[in-house]
């Protein structure tokens, strides 16, 4: 995938976030403060506006997307998603073509960035609970020598399982943590928005 194709993918991500605006907001309303979809859509709408002026370079597109998210999303999601995109872009600096190997580098950098900034890890009912399983599935799949689109199908399956898993655990990070045990039974909006993004990548490759 080159920069031009990648910009199409970014557009589809932005559109999918818009479609899921109400769904993400409703999930957040139950265990957070009910604005996740609104904030993510505000950020990705701005990204959508900026795509035509972005260079045809995956790394640069990712970085500019990250910076746009930091300055428009707000809340915790802004810095966290912004960092994820910026770090991912940084990890593939100078590459003209991006394949599964690069996708793994990007996800690794994004996850490490989110963990460091959010001082968190898996099992805390956050976006990491879908991103990390997806990353691990992707890596395993590639090592097994399977093709990219199959690997993304498996990565999304792992992310879906991760989102399901967030229903069973207590939130210990973010605003949902104040609910303690009352957060059990509800899926995490951040893990869900990460799943939405991964699903777009899967469908794009199919």
């Amino acid at each position, binding site marked *: 995938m080159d920069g031009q194709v990648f910009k199409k993918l970014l557009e589809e991500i932005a559109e999918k976030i818009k479609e899921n605006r109400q769904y993400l907001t409703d999930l957040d*309303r139950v265990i957070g*403060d009910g*604005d996740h979809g609104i904030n993510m859509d505000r950020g990705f709408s701005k990204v959508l506006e900026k795509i035509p002026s972005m260079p045809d370079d995956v790394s640069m597109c990712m970085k500019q997307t990250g910076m746009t998210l930091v300055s428009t999303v707000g*809340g915790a999601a*802004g*810095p966290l998603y912004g960092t994820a995109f910026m770090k991912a872009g940084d990890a593939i600096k100078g590459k003209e073509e991006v394949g599964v190997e690069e996708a793994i580098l990007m996800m690794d950098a994004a996850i490490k960035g989110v963990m460091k900034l959010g001082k968190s890890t898996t099992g805390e009912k956050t976006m990491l609970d879908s991103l990390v399983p997806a990353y691990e599935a992707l890596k395993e799949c590639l090592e097994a020598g399977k093709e990219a689109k199959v690997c993304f199908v498996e990565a999304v399956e792992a992310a879906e399982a991760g989102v399901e898993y967030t229903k069973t655990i207590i939130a210990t990070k973010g605003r949902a943590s*104040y609910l303690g045990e009352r957060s059990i039974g509800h899926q995490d909006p951040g893990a869900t928005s990460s799943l939405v993004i991964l699903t777009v990548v899967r469908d794009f490759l199919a």
Partner: protein
Amino acid sequence: MKKLINKPENVEVEMLEGMEFAHGDLLRKLEGFNVLVRANKKQGKVALVSGGGSGHEPAHGGYVGTGMLDGAVAGAMFTSPTPDQVFEAVKAVDAGKGVLLVIKNYTGDVLNFEMAADMAEMEGIKVDKVVVNDDVAVMNSLYTTGRRGVAGTVFVHKIAGAMAERGAELDEVKRVAEKAIANVRTMGVALTPCTVPAAGKPGFDLAEDEMEVGLGIHGEPGTHKSKMLPADEIVDLLLGKIFEDMPMGKGDKVAVMVNGCGGTPVSELYILNRRVAGVMKEKGIEVKKTLVGNYMTSIEMQGGAISVLKLDDELEGLLNEPADTVGLKL
């Protein structure tokens, strides 16, 4: 949803513009940013910047002025402002002696303000921060991100603002801010939810005979729901929780804030304060100052919160110095 607004996406900026028209003698809005700063920048002092999501008016823009804040950053309703906005505020108010960020303890606020602090430091501006966590509803433990910052933040603005106005250095201003944080506790109760304009529907549900105990200021659910109680019993419940966390007794002196959430009439806040005063008297605690009103609101939510600031001579002195802001004049 029935609100006096034009478009949900313009609520924040139109509110700030309206504030600037009303109070141009005290504050002005930075062009292109949702930031309010003092109309007359004071040179040679440490500058104080606070902020957070909108919807808590008069916080935080209403505390910009002499004796309190130098700048306030307004995020979207209930959403922390972004780092670039905070950075603009820091640049605008820095008068060469450094900037203290007063942050309420929410994951988003802390992340965005910290990113802004990094940006400012890269430009050579000296920045430090304090994080307010006065809400006793949520205990600080390994399992949460820590206590939330709520209405007690206004006391922190007042104390740190007075110290900065005296011309103290950044580390001294930070020291008294942290002292205020260490000595202030808040506990609240909500009777109705509130509606973020962009969401269009209430943040949670409460039955007619129920109240949410220990709510946060963003309409996020509290610790538990309870049947409605008479005002005096609500005060006993809230103060009980505060005293449990910060034991006080005969000979102690305090400042009290009975804060309205935005939709509760001031008459009811005074009914709460009547009981607060009674309990304090019974315990032999001297109330040196009482603030009753809407200081840190949650849009149109009905409910109230009690904040208690335990005073020593230094805090009392700082509290009694003049303040000239929209939200607090002393």
